[in-house]
């Protein structure tokens, strides 16, 4: 029985639950131009996989991530700018799909909050040092 369990586990639904379609060719194949591949790779590390929500599409094995990688590589190969591709993804899935929050709305608050905290801490520290002196 012990010997059969791993075999049964490999045949269980999570393994076959992704269907059996072909992977798009560019999902796991690098672009020929190393500079473009580096660009695509940087972008893929900052886009979130829709299927396995905590991972970037560069890290994920999910079918959806494969499709997203292929889309990124295909658009980079076609000369598209990485930020334009990020916007393309955001147009379809919302801000959520990007690991790098946009500098507007709640995203802007996220970017400038450290600056305000820094100013506030200087102001607090100033009072402390003055008293010491």
């Amino acid at each position, binding site marked *: 029985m012990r010997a059969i369990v791993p075999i049964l586990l490999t045949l269980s*639904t999570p393994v*076959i*639950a*992704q*269907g*059996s*379609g*072909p*992977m*798009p060719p560019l999902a796991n194949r690098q672009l020929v131009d190393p500079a473009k591949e580096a660009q695509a790779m940087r972008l893929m590390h900052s886009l979130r996989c*829709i*299927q396995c*929500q905590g991972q970037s599409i560069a890290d994920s094995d999910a*079918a*959806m991530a494969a*499709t*997203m990688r*292929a*889309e990124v590589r295909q658009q980079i190969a076609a000369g598209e700018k990485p930020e334009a591709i990020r916007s393309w993804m*955001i*147009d*379809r*899935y*919302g801000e*959520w*799909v990007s690991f790098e929050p946009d500098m507007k709305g709640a995203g802007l608050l996220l970017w400038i909050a450290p600056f305000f905290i820094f100013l506030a801490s200087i102001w607090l520290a100033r009072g402390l040092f003055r008293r010491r002196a």
Partner: protein
Amino acid sequence: MNRPWILWIPLAVVAFIGGLAFYGLAVPKDDQVHSAMIGKKLPAFALPAATAGVPALSNTDIADGKPRLLNIFASWCLPCKAEAPQLEALKAAGIEIDAIAIRDKPEDVAAFLAEFGNPFRRIGSDSEMLVQLKLGSSGVPETYVIGGDGTILFQHIGDIRAEHVPMLIEKVNAAR
């Protein structure tokens, strides 16, 4: 201490963070990734037929002036089997349903339809999920309400349960 109010700031900050924590516990988390394509036109696509005997699907087939449902399904997806009776009920209510089969094989789609019935007018095969990506769809099953001019009006994520059927009928009829 000439400014005693300053002592309250740390407490206020901690209380705020504590409040956020309680809010996070009290309000259930929405794990679904909603499409940002609602209100936009269907992307252009032309998918081959998913199985013999059911016509192929392109965006112009859907945007033919008549509002309808677009069901994203797969033969390997369990909830898709569970929603089959609800799709039959929608069809019986006079609603046309087109479908996109995700990462599927023709023989698997044929077996699925033979077992659970075919409520679909057309089925396109999206074997590489590229159309699914363009739709902002995040998984199977999903059901979109599409207006007669091809505008995406509504996205239902997950299987259609019996209680969702009247709502979907109403949304399609409202688009007529």
